């Protein structure tokens, strides 16, 4: 995979990476806040691990590659997390985190303080079962995907149900354990339909518009996609988690390209770790570090205001950043 890819009129260059195993522990989502700040939920380790579960959400400084604050911890009590899945920022800056096991949406202040929760387990209207992807729309309402109810529900920020769509199945508007959710600049809703190996696109009211991908590992295909994002041009990026790649589609659903990961350099936080451990420095000189470049279970994608595509990896705990170039011109060489 080249560091620069030009496909048709689009050019992507690999920029840099952020984070490490010590930053995030099995991250399941990624959203961006103020410039240069990311919010990431960590799925952590199964309860019972003697050294703690590491479930949390983190507010991360992408520029300096350092943690700003953590919220939540492993546990069943209010404010704690067992299976954190999705994260979203309300217009007022509060942080909303879904818990796929506890069937609730926990609400935190930006400094990590627990503020409250909503959600009642069940399959009736307004109840939730297996909440995963979560995103606020421009009006301050929030969409939640439910992996066990196989639907999307729209709530007010305080958890009052507004509307819903979806049921179990593989037809248009049907779901199989949906995971990530995304809202584009027009308010349309994208759902990573995990078990159906596709992404579905809906109007804000839930009317089916289109689907991207089909089961498999070939061009344009998907295997258990977990996250979706769109850039300002309308191109769609899908975390093709099962295939260890990110698929880029145009707005019509035609495949543009695939990203497999290009992290040839360590992130800042990784450099700090390695340089402080001389044995690691020596071992890295002997070993084939190209193994590190590729994505390992990319779980979510986000696009920032500079049209940078940020891809977070569940296994490596790292964010790889690609730049979608404007007016890119190939350098001319004397050959």
């Amino acid at each position: 995979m080249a560091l620069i890819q030009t496909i048709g009129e689009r050019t992507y260059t690999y920029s840099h990476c952020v984070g490490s195993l010590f930053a995030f522990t099995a991250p399941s989502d990624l959203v961006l806040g103020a410039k240069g700040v990311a919010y990431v939920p960590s799925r952590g380790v199964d309860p019972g691990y003697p050294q703690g579960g590491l479930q949390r959400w983190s507010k991360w400084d992408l520029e300096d590659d350092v943690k700003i604050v953590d919220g939540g911890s492993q546990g069943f009590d209010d404010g704690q997390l067992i299976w954190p899945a999705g994260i979203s920022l309300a217009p007022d800056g509060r942080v909303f985190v879904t818990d796929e096991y506890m069937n609730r949406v926990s609400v935190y202040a930006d400094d990590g303080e627990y503020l409250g929760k909503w959600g009642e387990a069940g399959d009736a209207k307004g109840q939730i079962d297996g909440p995963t992807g979560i995103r606020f729309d421009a009006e301050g309402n929030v969409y939640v995907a439910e992996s066990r109810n196989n639907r999307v529900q729209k709530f007010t920020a305080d958890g009052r149900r507004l509307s819903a769509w979806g049921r179990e199945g593989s037809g248009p508007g049907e779901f199989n354990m949906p995971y990530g959710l995304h809202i584009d600049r027009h308010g349309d809703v994208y759902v990573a339909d995990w078990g159906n190996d596709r992404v579905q696109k809906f109007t804000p009211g839930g009317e089916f518009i289109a689907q991207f991908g089909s089961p498999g590992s070939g061009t344009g295909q998907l295997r258990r996609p977990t996250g979706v994002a769109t850039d300002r041009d309308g191109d769609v990026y899908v975390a093709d988690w099962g295939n260890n790649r990110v698929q880029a589609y145009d707005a019509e659903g035609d495949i543009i390209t695939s990203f497999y990961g290009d992290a040839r350099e360590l992130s800042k936080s990784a450099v700090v770790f390695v340089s402080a451990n001389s044995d690691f420095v020596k071992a890295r000189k002997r070993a084939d570090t190209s193994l590190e470049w590729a994505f390992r279970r990319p779980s979510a994608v986000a696009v920032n205001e500079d049209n940078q595509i940020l891809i977070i990896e569940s296994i490596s705990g790292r964010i790889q950043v690609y730049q979608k170039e404007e007016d890119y011109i190939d350098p001319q060489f004397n050959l």
Partner: protein
Amino acid sequence: MGSKSIALIAHLMRRAGFGASYQELEERAAKGYEATVEELLDPAAHGTPPVDPFLMYRYHPMNEIPGAPPFGSMNVMYYMLTTKRPLEEKMTLFWHMVFATGNSKIDNPTEMNRQMRMFREHGLGNYRDLLARLAKDPAMIYWLDNNMSHKHAPNENWGRELLELFTMGQGNYTEDDVKMASRAFTGWTIKPKLPRAPYGRFLWEFDYRPEDHDGSEKEFLGRKGNFNGEDIIDIILEEPATARFMARHLYNFFVADEVQVPSWKDVPPRDPEAVQAIADVFVESDFDIKSTLRFLFNSDFFKDEGVWFAKVKNPAEVVAGTTRLVGDFQEPKPGVMMLTLEAGYQGQELINPPSVEGWHTGSEWIDTGALVRRVNFVAEMLGDAGKPGVKSIIDTLGARTVLSPEELVDGCLEMLGAIRVEEGTRRQLIDHVGSGGEVRRGSSEEEIRAFGQRVTEVLQLIAATREYQFA
């Protein structure tokens, strides 16, 4: 359905699997014994799906590339709890116990889980092929120092254990044979390892270095030649001792407890004819493991009631078997870690056997601490009326209006997988139930709850019996 055929199927499922609910036993008995054996031996051909790794990784993402014990062994426990191919998983455990490799030295659970996956995928295949894979398995190479074995300075660890524990057994080779085998495997090593941080574990890679291989002539088990590792495996398989040694391992794991492996050179097998018969099939089938197990499960010596409950369950069987029996973990949920730790507390820390000799089995699984731990674990599981399997037992028994104490005790024993207890134990259980008055389900909420309590009380008492600890 005759209770005798169900009891035989129950015996098969305790050995070739992790036990089964009474409903599953009835279903399998209806299909027939031989048909069940075939289904266990070849689940893919019968449309039985494997565990979906993506489902596991979605809910337990750290199971894919675990960084450290103990959550490194969650992967294995998850398979045991959820597999619909129990013999495949039982063979994974078998090979893990024979080709014992420990994370205490490997210090890379991800690599250990890859070795377990190799056993899962090839454990019912061909023994020759399995040995060849094992010799190239990075975890095994590191475990037995073959990466430290060089052309001019061979390390004998792998060569010795290959002969002593993985193929022939003590007393069937000489020290010179160990030296020659070790020389033949020089150059079989691994590439330099990428550190575990900052991005997590990466798999190791087998590396054959011809320049570090001793290609000179060797004399091994009476043959001469410029042997490489594959030749050594072929020669080992020509020796009758190999088939007999592995046959005894299969007998020990599936039929009845033997003395500990180091004593095998001195103590004859419990059933020499059975072991020889298994060995003969092993050789005749060119070391096809599936064919050998087909013979074993269909043999009279396996079906003989004299070997029922003649094996002490290993902790993985206690934990996974009981959890499957109560119907827990049918869907992804947290808690696999606790069960993984429980097996360790009972004496079997998966992917981390105490030495290359593996765990000592049979009665050595039991000491005062482990026994209390085992009984408490099972009693707690069986005492939880909220677990689907326990609820099902209560509902099935409650379908009858009134139960005599005998009917309740015998019903519970049957529901737990056609368990047979000594008559004295059975009488004590019956007397205990009888002292509590008439057993009636009733119709009020309070009566139903009280009935459920009486049932779970009997289930918990059965958990404390000697027989529940046996397979």
